[in-house]
């Protein structure tokens, strides 16, 4: 579900009106740059000197946000009033979209459509990115089919036999008599010209099997003239040749293909070819890539006729991820923790480091518990966690609510019969349990697994899924048998497993009760104790295989290879963007020394048959424009006959996150709020809602670190909660924490926490723990600040050997930390003497016994 960015901005502004935050900044969002433009486009022919209008339409293009984009971010492009397309191809991307009629071509181009700019900064076909030669160049086309030479808007040079370049590079073949060639070279950001008429002359990012699949689309317009796509933009990091970044202006160019406007040429054949109006019915499909009428195909987007119909959407890019390390040479203050924060912190960081009166904020992703431990050991000033943590010998800690966000079950699923992507998906806890417990066999290999023989092969083959999501393809698909998930420990995994455990149907399934269609849990996971922080891979079944390649690589359990969890959520988002599962199930190689049989990552899924479901953060889902599933909130008894009626599904949105937060109960001053799954469900809140806290010590921090943390909490919960895409603003996927409204309690708690951290007078309820001696004293004034990188932190704890968790405050006056504690080892004391004695004893006793025995016999 795409959030209504503009509406949200308005809503936040309304809530925040007149409310000055403590930083004196009004809680208003900034403009994300929603775009809307209407243009009249037409196709005309010249007949006997008269202009004949063939078609004329008013096309309106809207883009939901265009400012401060980041690499691979997807923007939602919609249009209305375009000519209905025909011959829909399965994939609209790159050259796969070429065999269509009247599509809408959407490209990313460097430059702006602004007549006041110098020519070099303007958008032209030469600065528009495409991935293949076919999208740019027409080589040695017989003159009678060279329809672009009959374009009535083209100038004379474009109508000559060779156009676009003065001379053709050798690798592109020569000019044969009676043929025409047009080349649309690509000019890179550095000014280099790539002729783009053969694979050698393309820019490097356009290589076959490039790391990023094509993003440019020839998108389909439905019979009512509407269309919408998620368009992925590329920054200079992904595509250096295109070179879009915060300093280089770029545009998204939308070209509704109306067909070539034709001159009357002398050749009857050419006239006929140019005037063709399509052979496919509007709305029809072109599954097998049949030829289309060239004059209305997207191949000729660069012709003057099509190019003049373009609508250019100016876009801007956010600062590069390394902006802080480039522009700020202060040492970074590293906050470690939850990946849920990453989309927010990527926007926050420049707002800190680019101001001299602040510090250089840095967020490093680490599992919640590990970062909490680091914080307790004074390695880092603060940790981002989503729940209460406990460690031995803990120093009093304040939890400041810093963001309201959560996890999303994101997916990319294509409708059958070439009908585009599925926009909504309903999932319940039992389906998640089935996916996570690897109870779908996936393929014939998994079906050998004892206990899984009769289970549906994959999620889409499961009658329960079909009942909740009618109309999708039901053929078994390997990648649809698992949920792409995280291999690390995370509060997100804990939240998902809690959601599963609290659901009566899912709980019964885990306990071994079959679902109403007889599907059973994978025996390896039966009665697994939930919740867990880290999802275990328990299945050990290795199937019998026939293929030689598989035989040689059959040492990892099949279902584990299929699940293939990854180490970060952003990798899952990448997999969903590319529809490329991580499953290690593709066996390739020749079995020779040079090309041994290897198991590798499965292939990218073809557009039109995509089916991939994964766990992502809400921030990533919004940034990358991923579809997110609605989760069931109503509890249904596993004994009741199955029905879809009465089941409530809640998708993530500002409203449903707010509903979930309204059930949060405080558990103590500056302690995490209790967000209980049952209460959230009852309130119809989004079950994936999580609060991310900044956890920091309220005792034992030196003054400057304490001040840094407190100022971070204050800034993050005031200025950092304004919705927007600019530096310091809160991106979509996060519910702003405000002084009033649903999140007021969180706001108040955060301010208290900031106060407590700054004061550093916290006490542990159970008295200072740790045997290291010396309670906590106030750090002496002027004690050396650690600037958040306390490299000497582990230091003092070492010498007083028993010091477990307790840290001595650093005090310049203190000369000694007490006396060295002795460590005595009895083993160390006695093993050498004992061994020597043993050796002597045995070496003497052995022969002596024998000698004496032999002597007795002899005598």
């Amino acid at each position: 579900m795409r959030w209504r960015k503009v509406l949200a901005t308005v809503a936040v502004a309304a809530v925040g009106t007149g409310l000055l935050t403590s930083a004196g900044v009004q809680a208003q969002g900034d403009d994300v740059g929603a775009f809307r433009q209407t243009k009249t486009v037409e196709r005309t022919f010249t007949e006997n000197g008269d202009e004949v209008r063939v078609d004329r339409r008013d096309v309106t293009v809207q883009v939901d946000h265009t400012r401060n984009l980041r690499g691979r971010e997807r923007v939602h492009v919609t249009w209305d009033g375009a000519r209905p397309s025909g011959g829909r191809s399965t994939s609209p991307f790159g050259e796969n979209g070429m065999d269509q009629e009247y599509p809408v071509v959407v490209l990313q181009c460097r430059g702006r459509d602004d007549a006041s700019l110098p020519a070099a900064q303007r958008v032209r076909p030469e600065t528009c990115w495409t991935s293949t030669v076919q999208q740019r160049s027409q080589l040695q086309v017989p003159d009678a089919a060279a329809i672009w030479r009959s374009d009535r808007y083209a100038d004379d040079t474009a109508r000559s036999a060779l156009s676009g370049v003065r001379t053709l590079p050798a690798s592109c073949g020569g000019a044969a008599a009676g043929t025409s060639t047009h080349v649309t070279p690509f000019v890179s950001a550095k000014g280099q010209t790539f002729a783009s008429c053969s694979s050698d002359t393309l820019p490097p990012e356009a290589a076959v099997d490039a790391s990023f699949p094509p993003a440019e689309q020839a998108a389909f317009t439905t019979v009512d003239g509407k269309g919408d796509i998620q368009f992925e933009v590329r920054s200079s990091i992904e595509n250096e040749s295109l070179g879009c970044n915060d300093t280089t202006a770029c545009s998204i160019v939308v070209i509704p293909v109306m067909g070539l406007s034709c001159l009357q040429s002398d050749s009857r054949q050419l006239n006929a070819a140019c005037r063709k109006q399509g052979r496919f019915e509007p709305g029809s499909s072109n599954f097998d890539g049949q030829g289309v009428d060239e004059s209305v195909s997207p191949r000729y987007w660069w012709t003057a006729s099509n190019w003049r119909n373009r609508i250019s959407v100016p876009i801007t890019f956010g600062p590069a991820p390394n902006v802080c390390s480039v522009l700020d040479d202060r040492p970074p203050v590293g906050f470690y923790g939850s990946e849920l924060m990453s989309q927010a912190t990527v926007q926050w960081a420049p707002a800190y480091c680019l101001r001299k009166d602040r510090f250089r904020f840095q967020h490093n992703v680490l599992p919640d518990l590990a970062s909490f431990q680091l914080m307790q050991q004074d390695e880092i000033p603060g940790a981002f966690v989503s729940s209460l943590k406990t460690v031995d010998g803990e120093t009093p800690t304040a939890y400041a609510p810093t963001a309201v966000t959560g996890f999303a079950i994101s997916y990319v699923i294509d409708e059958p019969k070439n009908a585009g992507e599925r926009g909504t998906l309903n999932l319940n806890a039992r389906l998640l349990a089935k996916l996570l417990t690897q109870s779908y066999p996936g393929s014939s290999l998994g079906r050998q697994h004892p206990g899984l023989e009769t289970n549906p092969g994959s999620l889409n083959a499961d009658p329960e899924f079909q009942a909740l999501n009618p109309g999708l393809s039901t053929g078994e698909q390997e990648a649809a048998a698992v949920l792409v998930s995280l291999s690390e420990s995370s509060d997100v995994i804990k939240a998902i497993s809690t959601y599963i455990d609290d659901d009566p149907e899912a709980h019964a399934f885990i306990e071994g009760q079959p679902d109403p269609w007889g599907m059973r849990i994978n025996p390896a996971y039966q009665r697994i104790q939930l919740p867990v922080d880290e999802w275990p891979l328990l299945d050990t079944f290795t199937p019998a295989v026939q293929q030689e390649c598989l035989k040689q690589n059959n040492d990892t359990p099949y279902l584990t290879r299929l699940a293939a969890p990854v180490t970060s959520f952003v990798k899952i988002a990448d997999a969903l963007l590319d529809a490329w599962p991580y499953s290690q199930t593709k066996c390739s190689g020749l079995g020779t020394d040079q090309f041994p049989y290897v198991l590798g990552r499965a292939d990218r899924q073809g557009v039109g048959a995509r089916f991939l479901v994964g766990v992502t953060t809400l921030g990533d889902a919004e940034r990358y424009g991923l579809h997110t599933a609605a989760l069931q909130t109503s509890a249904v008894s596993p004994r009741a006959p199955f029905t879809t009626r009465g089941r409530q599904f809640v998708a993530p949105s500002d409203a449903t996150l707010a509903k979930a937060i309204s059930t949060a109960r405080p558990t103590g001053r500056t302690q995490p709020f209790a967000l209980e799954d049952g209460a959230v469900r009852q309130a119809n809140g989004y079950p994936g809602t999580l609060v991310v806290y900044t956890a920091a010590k309220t005792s034992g921090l030196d003054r400057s670190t304490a001040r840094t943390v407190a100022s971070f909490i204050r800034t993050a919960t005031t200025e950092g909660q304004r919705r927007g895409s600019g530096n310091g603003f809160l991106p979509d996927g996060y519910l702003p924490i405000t002084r009033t409204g649903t999140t007021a309690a969180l706001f108040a708690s955060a301010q208290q926490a900031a106060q407590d951290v700054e004061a550093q007078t916290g006490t542990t309820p159970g008295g200072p723990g740790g045997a290291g001696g010396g309670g906590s004293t106030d750090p002496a004034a002027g004690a050396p600040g650690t600037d958040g990188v306390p490299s000497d932190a582990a230091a003092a704890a070492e010498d007083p050997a028993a010091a477990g968790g307790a840290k001595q405050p650093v005090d310049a006056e203190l000369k000694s930390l007490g006396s060295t504690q002795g460590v005595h080892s009895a083993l160390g004391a006695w093993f050498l003497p004992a061994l020597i004695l043993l050796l002597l004893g045995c070496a003497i006793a052995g022969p002596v016994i024998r000698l004496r025995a032999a002597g007795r016999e002899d005598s």
Partner: protein
Amino acid sequence: MTVAPLNGRLTGQRRGSGALKGGLAAARDTSRVPERDLVLSSGLMVVALLVAWVLLQTLVLGGLSYSRAQDRLYDELRADLAAGTAPTGGVIAPGRPVALFSLPALDIDQVVVEGTSAGLLLDGPGHRRDTVLPGQAGVSVVYGRSRTFGRPFHVMTHEAVGTRLDVVTGQGRSTYRIEGVRRAGDDVPAPPAQGQGRLTLITAAGDGRLGGLRPDEVVYVDASLQSKPFPAGGARVNTIGQSEQKMAVDTSVLPLLALTLGGLLVAVVGMLLLGRRLRPALVWTVFAPVFLALAWFAADLSVHLIPNLV
């Protein structure tokens, strides 16, 4: 000591001259020695051999294995330094060389490895994984053995005190001055000020008359950083296991050790059984390599059970 009687039936066998040789020769004639004594005697001999082997390995052969490991680690570190891939922080794989200690006054070089478990300290001094690397700001802690396996840190508590210690890591060269030995009861120095560095070398020592044989106390040698400290690298390991603490033993080898000792037992029994049917020379020929291999392996494993600082 009585001289063993000559055994007339063993024709062609050269007569031993010493008590031990005579005893062994006598033992070959199993018919003449009672079973009980034979078993007891053989058992004791095996134990003696094993113990001798362990002592030999820890005190003598261990030095050879230490030297060899140091050679290898030196090469590895040199390659790392040349390639610029020597670790400078973060989580470093245990066993990887991280620093080179040089005592120019004594012409001693030691390569420090990452990790402080007993097994890792066989190869050289070990850097405690939850502290900063030598040369960096803060307190770096390095463990070393004082008695066995090359006894690298014996020198640190004796000749090296008061001299200069040069350290080379991936970040460059640092100079420390070895301040002195600190035992239980001595004052712990204050943590170094911001931007200062210290190196604490930890080993074991004994005192009293048999102190050399009984290294039972942990002693600390503090060295202060004289050169400019390097910044601490990435986040380190935040907790270390029990087996990496001071004077810890590595009990993870116990199952394997039990199997090896079991193997030795089987070999003893087998030797006794076969000794009744085959010629003793043949029996020894067959079993000597087996004993040697098993004993070597058992000793290799059992040294993991020696406290890591000894």
